[in-house]
């Protein structure tokens, strides 16, 4: 079972090689099986009893991926909602985290530890514990079914602050002192020197936040009740409430379609994502 990198570096023998390949392929098929299953269901037409492997490969209904937009014209709106929400939260987190981390990393003033504890404390209070009052607050302020209600509660992140602080601290302090002596403004230093130098950390935080927000379910479920305000994740579950049977294909097609943006982002931004996730790991 062990295929440890360099302890087996010399084992290029034939049986070993094909064994590894075989396991890689089998495991990949198992992991991808649910996705293949959903594709298969999408293509089988509006039947009440679809099967894992289509009974008839000649009548596959590829048009469902177009028709689903007619059957549920709101899908495009849901994708837009998710996109605006995820972008808004990402932008907000980048700004608030950088500013806050800047203060933690470079400012000296009495009571700085209080700020540190406020940020740390925010990591301690789970979303779950604040959910109901937050819901009531958003409802009272009339923010249900608005981007504000979807975005604002998530625009500050303890994780983001510590990630950015970590990144800022790796830059030499002398750079900061020299810039100050040269009369560089505080904000300008953050904007034109610190931020560009911390681009990897910012990218990491951005990809991580975007995907997490895109995939949110619980909060959008609560604060959106008009169908045009649903996000993709909540929207696709609405298909479930239709009458019995004939909706497996549209639902699966919709599910596959809304999965696409994050899959593309994963493929394109894999490096940032991986470093984002492992940054979290180092924190522990």
């Amino acid at each position, binding site marked *: 079972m062990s295929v440890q990198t360099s302890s087996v570096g010399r084992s290029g023998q034939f049986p070993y090689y094909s064994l590894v390949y075989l396991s890689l392929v089998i495991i990949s098929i198992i992991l991808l099986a649910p996705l293949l299953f959903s594709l298969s269901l999408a293509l089988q*037409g*509006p*039947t*009440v*009893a679809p099967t894992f492997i289509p009974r008839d490969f000649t009548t596959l*209904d*590829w*048009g*469902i*991926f*177009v*028709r689903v937009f*007619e*059957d*549920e*014209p709101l899908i495009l709106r849901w994708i837009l909602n998710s996109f605006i929400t995820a972008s808004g939260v990402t932008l907000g987190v980048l700004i608030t985290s950088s500013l806050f981390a800047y203060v933690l990393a470079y400012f000296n003033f009495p009571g700085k530890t209080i700020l540190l504890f406020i940020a740390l404390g925010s990591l301690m209070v789970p979303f779950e514990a604040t959910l109901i009052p937050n819901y*009531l607050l958003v*409802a*009272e*302020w*009339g923010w*249900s*079914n608005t981007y504000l209600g979807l975005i604002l509660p998530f625009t500050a992140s303890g994780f983001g602050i510590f990630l950015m602080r970590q990144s800022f601290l790796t830059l030499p302090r002398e750079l900061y002192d020299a810039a100050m002596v040269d009369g560089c403004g505080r904000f300008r230093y953050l904007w034109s020197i610190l931020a560009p130098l911390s681009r990897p950390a910012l990218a990491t935080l951005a990809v991580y936040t975007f995907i997490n927000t895109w995939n949110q379910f619980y909060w959008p479920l609560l604060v959106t*009740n*008009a*169908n045009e305000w649903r996000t993709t994740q909540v929207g696709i579950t*609405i298909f*479930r*409430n*239709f*009458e*019995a*049977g*004939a*909706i497996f294909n*549209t639902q699966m097609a919709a599910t596959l379609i809304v999965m*696409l943006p994050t*899959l*593309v982002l*994963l*493929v*394109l931004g*894999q*490096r940032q994502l*991986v470093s984002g996730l492992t940054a979290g790991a180092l924190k522990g």
Partner: protein
Amino acid sequence: MKNSRFGGKLVLIVLLAVFSLQFSTIVTAQTPTPVPPVPRPEGSTEIVFWYGLGGNLGNVVQEVVNQYNSSQTTYYVNAVFQSSYDDTINKINAGLASGDLPDLAQIFEAGTQRMIDSGAIVPVQQYFERDGMLDVIEDMEPAVRANYEVDGTLYSAPFNSSTAMLYINRAAAAEAGINADEPLVTYDQVAEYARAMTVRDASGNVTRYGLGVYAEGWFLEQIHAVHDTFIGLPDNGRAGERMTAYNYNSPAGVEWVEFLKGLVDEGVAIYYGPAAGGSNASAAAFANNEVAMHFASIASLRGLIASAEGAGQGVEVGTLYMPRNESATGKTIVGGASLWITNVRGEEIQEGAWDFIKFALTPETQAFWAVNTGYYPVVRASYDLPEMQEGLELYPQFQVAIDQIRLTDITDANTAHVSGIFVPYRTHYVEAFDRYFNGEFATAQEALDAAVAISNEQLEEYNLTVGE
């Protein structure tokens, strides 16, 4: 991870290739396409209408709304789908805090008490009185009218009314020598039918069960009505006093649950648990000839016929009454939903909502609605119209439902109970039912006792919060 980008790109290319292929071949649509709303005329007043029916039923709602909008230009009803009855009442609750309420809402009878308590509604009775339209109320199907009248006031206008049926595959019944034309059936008869229609293959595995069973509070309410038993005390909350306790651990309730469990234990019925969507699974199995009988609303008639045709297993959809103990003297309860006018946006808007209700209650609209859905008309004048008579000829199963709600006199026991925790109580019941079927309770009595205790705790708390 130097090469990760390459691997990633490869996957992306494959994905794109797959998807571009999908767009290139288009097959014609088979699912019902949504009915688009008609455009809003300039200068009209918008009436926001929340409704909870999806799929084909939702399309017919939109068609009725379109007919109304085309019939005049003063008001424009904007119909907004709310994914289910449960969701609609939940959103109304949420909207009470934020003021985000519709002008008109389609609410099922489970929401009646909550709507009254919300203080955000105008009883429709006053409009009927003001416009001298009490004859319309008089013409309403008596069981329907009783359902939405509380203490002599009609709070909401019934719109879509149904009742619960036992669906039977007439083809299977004929095979087994069962007379499916006699709709009134006892528990013993249904048990016999189930045994007769259960089919086993050579190795003894069941290929078709006699009955599909699932947990549903609405059926429990039906059973109490059929057996003249109050599900809520006192008097289903209809004798001028708020309900203070649930009573579904009654002998009628226990007998019902034991009856179903007995058939499952015997191997002639199959239990579809709530987790995987019990009612949908049972309906699909019925259409697919995997169960021969299935409980559902008469409003499901058209959907079941279409599914059965789609499945092509030769299922012929027939209807029977909800089963009963031989000694039972009652009849089933009316289900469905009614239209509520809210008071959030002033009188002008309320007039618009009322105007739509008047349209929705005309014999013509009700006949159109009934024929295209499977609900029965709420006003009896609809039956005189030719399209309604044609509809009844085309779907004789329908007449069974109408006969069923006219079977006996109307009493508080066979009228929906009024309770502030109507929706939660159904959950308590479904949970207990499922636990009993999973062997967590030894008897149905124990299961229902436990559920009633939870319901009553919550009902007591609810009554505290509304005060008097």
